[in-house]
């Protein structure tokens, strides 16, 4: 078992290195197959581990296998902490990764940098696994930064495209903003517990006298540290206002969007909060903060998706919105519920992205949905898969999304507080919005008439593309039935959260009768009328709705905010450089002082005239002065 755990990251690292550094002898296809095989082996290992974890109740694997740093009392290791929570996550990551690997063999086959791509995704999976397995905060951070790095590299995969290299810089920088707070949070935790290990931290959590700790800005110590950690998660999991990088990250190849920007990396923040639940559990302000951020992200980002015309960007905004659901669930300490949504979302969102990839390929890299339409007949398999994904995301009963989203809504309603009630309503409206934008996408892309020229040249992709879709579709349909597993899932040192769940059937019936169904039905008809039948309503052209529409289309000006602040930073930078550094320090002091001295010496030089009688006078004058002083002192 332990050995298998060690092998998983090693396999991926090997894959990344072999593919990345190999010479031209290794062909494209064989490189793709090689790395897919390695991921597959890792996947097998992870399923064995998952199986084992579930076979032995309460088994937790916790070990350090490498001592990274040890300076006297400080010990930072690389190790693993595998409980049910991380075992499932491990499995999901590897599964999606494997699927994407296979998918990419075909999708990327035209690319010159095929092997670089595979090296990256293997490296990504490695980092993600490091993050998931970690048993301490530093390893978590290493993985955290690692996935950020690979995301950066992959968004900039097409490095000649100006938009791509802008997007990847933006993504990295915004992630770095999060990382800054994340590391501060880590530092705060370390200062409190003198350790980075989860075990040590969690064991000592009860021994800490929280009352007597310093408070900052009116927040308690723990609140602030968790807030900082959460800000890190906000950047990674694309929460308002640090979400701006995610839509832009769609510049990367589509499989990447599926793997990184939908299924795995962006959920790292959710995972992290879940992992540190014993800490977050104790916070007060931070939890409310999380809740507010999550629910507003869920609602407002969904709204943007309605007006997007780029197929990938629609799905990206939907991802942000769904992440909002997960975060909102974290805010009421329903960690496993959130994790459940993460789990199902990983499948259906990866599915949607891969379908989108398939469509884009078939349409020769056209991503604009206004140039699509009526693809149903030409791409039947893709259509069915996309339909399954859509049903799942809108929470159509009995699909996986139904279970997870309804569970979130229910626990939200069960949580008796004003904030959670407000959030509940926001999430409910969010559900409606989800239905609208998802169905809009479905209708515009697959129904109606094709708007992009001749339809005849379009055909379904090869089996290498389709098989992954089908696999993910199956998971999207059925993964929801594991609801019991997640409700009963204990998190390391946090234990079980008491969730109101009475069994599958009551849950389903209750779910169907809940307000979410109303949202579903309303949304369906609204989408059908607006986007399938394309009816026009006067009401939609009224001043207010147009204003609202244009407001949403500005994406709430968050992008502008970041562009503004980055431009401002540059401006300040050049101002400081020229005025303060070169002007004041260098010009006035460092070079100014010598200049002054030089001037003084020029003045002195001009004073000595060269006349003999001046010399003699100075001579005598100096003697007089000396004697004068001495006489004055003697007398």
């Amino acid at each position, binding site marked *: 078992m332990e050995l298998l755990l060690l092998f998983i990251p090693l396999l991926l690292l090997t894959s990344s290195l072999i593919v990345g550094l190999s010479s031209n002898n290794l062909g494209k296809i064989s490189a793709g197959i090689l790395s897919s095989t390695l991921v597959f082996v890792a996947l097998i290992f992870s399923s064995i581990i998952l199986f084992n974890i579930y076979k032995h109740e309460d088994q937790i694997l916790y070990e350090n296998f490498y001592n990274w*740093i040890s300076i*006297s009392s400080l010990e930072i290791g690389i190790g693993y902490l595998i409980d049910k929570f991380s075992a499932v996550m491990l499995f999901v990551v590897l599964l999606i990764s494997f699927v994407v690997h296979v998918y990419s063999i075909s999708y990327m086959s035209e690319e010159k940098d095929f092997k670089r791509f595979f090296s990256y995704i293997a490296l990504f999976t490695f980092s993600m696994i490091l993050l998931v397995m970690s048993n301490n905060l530093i390893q978590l951070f290493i993985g955290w*930064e690692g996935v950020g*790095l690979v995301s950066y590299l992959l968004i900039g995969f097409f*490095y*000649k495209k100006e938009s791509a290299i802008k997007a990847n810089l933006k993504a990295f920088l915004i992630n770095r903003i999060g990382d*800054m707070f994340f590391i501060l949070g880590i530092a705060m935790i370390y200062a409190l517990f003198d350790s980075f290990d989860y075990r040590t931290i969690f064991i000592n959590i009860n021994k800490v006298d929280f009352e007597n700790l310093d408070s900052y800005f009116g927040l308690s110590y723990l609140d602030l540290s968790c807030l900082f950690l959460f800000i890190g998660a906000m950047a990674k999991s694309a929460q308002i206002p640090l979400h701006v990088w995610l839509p832009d990250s769609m510049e990367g190849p589509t499989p990447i969007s599926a793997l990184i920007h939908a299924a795995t990396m962006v959920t790292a923040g959710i995972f992290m909060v879940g992992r540190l639940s014993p800490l977050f559990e104790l916070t007060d302000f931070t939890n409310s903060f999380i809740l507010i951020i999550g629910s507003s992200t869920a609602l407002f980002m969904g709204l943007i998706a309605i007006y997007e015309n780029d197929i990938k960007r629609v799905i990206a905004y939907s991802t942000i919105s769904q992440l909002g659901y997960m975060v909102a669930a974290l805010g009421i300490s329903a960690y496993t519920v959130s994790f459940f949504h993460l789990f199902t979302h990983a499948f259906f969102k990866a599915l949607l992205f891969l379908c989108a990839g398939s469509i884009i390929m078939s349409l020769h890299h056209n991503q604009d949905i206004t140039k699509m339409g009526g693809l149903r007949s030409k791409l039947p398999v893709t259509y069915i898969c996309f339909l399954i994904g859509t049903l799942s995301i809108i929470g159509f009963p009995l699909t996986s999304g139904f279970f997870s989203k309804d569970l979130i809504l229910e626990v939200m309603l069960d949580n008796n507080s004003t904030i959670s009630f407000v959030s509940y309503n926001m999430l409910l409206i969010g559900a409606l919005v989800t239905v609208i934008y998802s169905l809009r996408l479905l209708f515009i892309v697959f129904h109606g008439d094709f708007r992009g020229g001749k339809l005849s040249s379009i055909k379904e992709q090869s089996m290498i593309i389709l098989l992954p879709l089908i696999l993910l579709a199956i998971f999207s349909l059925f993964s929801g039935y594991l609801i019991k597993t997640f409700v009963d899932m204990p998190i390391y040192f946090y234990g079980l959260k008491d969730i109101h769940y009475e069994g599958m059937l009551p849950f389903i019936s209750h779910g169907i009768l809940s307000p979410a169904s109303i949202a579903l039905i309303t949304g369906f008809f609204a989408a059908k009328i607006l986007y399938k039948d394309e009816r026009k309503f006067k009401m939609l052209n009224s001043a207010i709705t147009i204003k609202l529409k244009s407001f949403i289309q500005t994406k709430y000006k968050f992008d502008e905010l970041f562009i503004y602040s980055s431009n401002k930073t540059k401006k*300040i930078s050049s101002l*400081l450089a020229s005025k303060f550094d*070169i002007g004041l320090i260098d010009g006035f002091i460092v070079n100014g002082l010598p200049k002054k001295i030089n001037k003084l010496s020029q003045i002195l030089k001009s004073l000595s005239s060269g006349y003999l009688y001046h010399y003699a006078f100075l001579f005598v004058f100096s003697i007089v002065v000396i004697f004068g002083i001495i006489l004055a002192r003697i007398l």
Partner: protein
Amino acid sequence: MISNILSLLIWVPILSGIILYFYNRNEKILNIYNVLINFFVLALSIYLLINFKQDVEAFQFIEKYNWINTLNIQYFLGVDGISTLLIILNTIIFFIVSIYNLNLKIDKRNQYYASFLIANGLTIGVFSSLDAILFYIFFEALLIPMFLIIGIWGGANRIYASIKFFIYTFFGSVLLLISFLYINSKISSFDINYLYDANFTLVEQEWLFIAMAIAFAIKIPMFPFHTWLPDAHVQAPTSGSVVLAAILLKVGAYGFIRYVLPVVPIGAMSLDIYFIILSLIAIAYVGLIAITQNDMKKLIAYSSISHMGFVTLGFFIIFQLFEKTSNVDDLIISLSGSLYQIISHGFVSASLFICVGSIYDRYKTKKISDLSGLLNQMPVYSWFFLFFALANCGLPGTSSFVGELLIIISSFKANFIYAFISSSTLIISAFYSLWLVKRVIYGEIKIDLDKNIDANNLEKLILFTLALIIIILGIYPDFIMNFMNTSLRHISETIIFKL
């Protein structure tokens, strides 16, 4: 066991350098001779490393002769873990530089090599001398070869830069001399062990601290004494920049840990807040300045200053840490972070300068605005450049992460604000490093040289070695930590004892 190994390390390169200075016939022999000597020194230093006993607190490989009895000056050499590591850093960098220099097309090649060899020996002298005046002599003499390297083989504005470099650092070092002489006038010794045992009053310590700290702060350089560095870097030839960034700045940091903190801790303690503020300014403000530099070397120079801000921050928070936790381990962690940062930055900045130098050799420009899309024309270089840029912004897995992490977590223990400002480097360093990458490496090609100008095998070897070292240091920091641990504990205990 080679006796007098430290003397060999110092004098072999210096004497060979002097010989080389007057030998100017066959270029091939010159090249081979130069590489061989550097390799010999490297091998010798590795021998030193192998024979170094990690768990011994006292100085090792001691050579102690009476040099100038009448002035209490001894020829006193010896190393502890810190200096051993810095010597290794030094010899590796000089060896790499000697290989890199094979590619250069320069005149007065023999003198160029000679200057580097002499600088090599003198730096080892700085790191291994345990007598304050001996240290000072090496410290000061080191200026001469660097002055010549910048002045003779530098860029268009080299004279201004070299003079500024020389006079600025000389200004600092005379203050150092004054302090050493003052100490001597009180305890009649320059021996490091006596210095550690000496006790001064608060006022004395404060003044001594100010004088010595300014000297080393100029060398490191700390804000606001930093303005000589960008000029020197921009004008210096590539190998000169490499040595300047990788070695010379470290001499200042080494001075702090060896001659300032343990000798006048009370003075340092009473004034530490100012130096912490300066370090924080260096980290944030200088990093900010780096963002919009249009000269790649200047950008890296500013980033060096910003990174060295971490080093000094790690040095000066120890007193507040001690006040808060009175745990010697916290001091050691912070100091380890600083020293790790020193070593890591040595390699990272060296690599970056080598990359920039090679770009300059090909495109004859260092201006960012002139370049774009190098990835299309010189992919191998560009990937390495990207890697080093990422290392420069402290990516985990590379060596720079370790130091920054340790310092950030220590600084939080001292004060929230310190940690907050210092961790802003995560954003700022990413901004300047990756924006640089975006503009230079990525995008469409701007100047098409239309021939194969990618790295040749020699350069590939150099870059690969450096990248490998950076990664190894990133994933196996314990190798270095073990070396430093005992020595740092010793120094920390000395400091605490005197407090």
